[in-house]
């Protein structure tokens, strides 16, 4: 059966890629999400999507980047849906209090929580993954100007928080 062997070969290839870069991808996406659970779910879903598009993605320079991009988009989508649901819920009650970042230790994750998801995404993609503005704009399907403004605001917030926290370390 040609179809079965083809499908099986794709599953083997995706499985190999999954073994080699799953943890790394989850770390990056979870950092942007500020949630390991969200990071794992988005990356897993991205790998499952990859299985159905392996014919196309296998010809790209880096299938790992494709998975990462899809996972970031999935994160945006699920946060948008969750945000809408929460907004609907909050119409009937007070907004939950956001916990202040801990000043006891250097914790960039806490500092990142002061940013919006969109700002965290561009900060992580730019400062951790080394992507340029155009690349981020293409990956997140937003305007380059939006990337620049999010980066600027994100860096401004982090600049206020991180030196202070670093001094506590």
């Amino acid at each position, binding site marked *: 059966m040609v179809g079965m062997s083809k499908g099986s070969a794709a*599953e083997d290839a*995706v*499985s190999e890629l*999954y*073994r080699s870069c*799953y*943890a*790394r991808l*989850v*770390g*990056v996406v*979870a*950092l942007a999400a500020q949630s*390991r659970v969200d*990071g*794992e779910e988005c990356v*897993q879903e991205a*790998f*499952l999507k990859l*299985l159905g598009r392996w014919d196309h993605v296998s010809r790209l320079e880096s299938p790992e980047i494709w998975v990462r991009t899809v996972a970031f988009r999935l994160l945006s989508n699920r946060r948008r849906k969750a945000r809408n649901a929460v907004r609907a819920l909050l119409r009937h009650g007070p907004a939950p209090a956001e916990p202040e970042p801990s000043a006891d230790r*250097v*914790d*960039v*994750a806490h500092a*990142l929580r002061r940013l919006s998801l969109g700002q965290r995404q561009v*900060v*992580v993609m730019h*400062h*951790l993954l*080394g992507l340029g503005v155009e690349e981020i704009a293409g990956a997140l399907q937003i305007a380059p100007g939006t990337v620049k403004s999010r980066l600027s605001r994100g*860096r401004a917030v*982090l*600049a206020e928080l*991180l*030196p202070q926290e*670093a001094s506590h370390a």
Partner: protein
Amino acid sequence: MPDLGDLLASAATEFQPVRQPEFGQLVRASRRRRQRRVTGSAAAVVVLALSANAVTWRPGPVPQEPSGRVPQVAVEVTGSMRRIGGPMGAAPLGVGGTVRFEDAGGTTVTAEVAADGRFTVAVPAGRYVVTGTPAGAGQASCRATAPVVVADTRLDGIEVDCHVR
């Protein structure tokens, strides 16, 4: 400000999971979810179809009676045909002959009247004009004072009077 890239790399490493599920497990779980969705959708379609049917269902056409005249159960009617009048002080006297029940559609039922004037006739329920012909008389000259309404139970005491001058 510390090097942001280093801080982010360190934080991302902390977010990395210690264990990861086998890819095959993910695929199987995904297929099970898809199967459940398909089954759920199919069940929903069935439920919707049944609901729609329940809303729009109408009883089938009422079975029609066979065309033509439907035989009805005859009801027994009894009474008496009497001669009234004649010489001063004469009492009503039963007379023999025939009685005739005629409904609005022109259907008639005729019965014999005994010599003592009593008769028994079986007619379907309905409204009848009742007339009588005394034995030996050439034409009907006897009748009930009012139309007789026969219901679905036995009816007694019908009086058909023949007035004699």
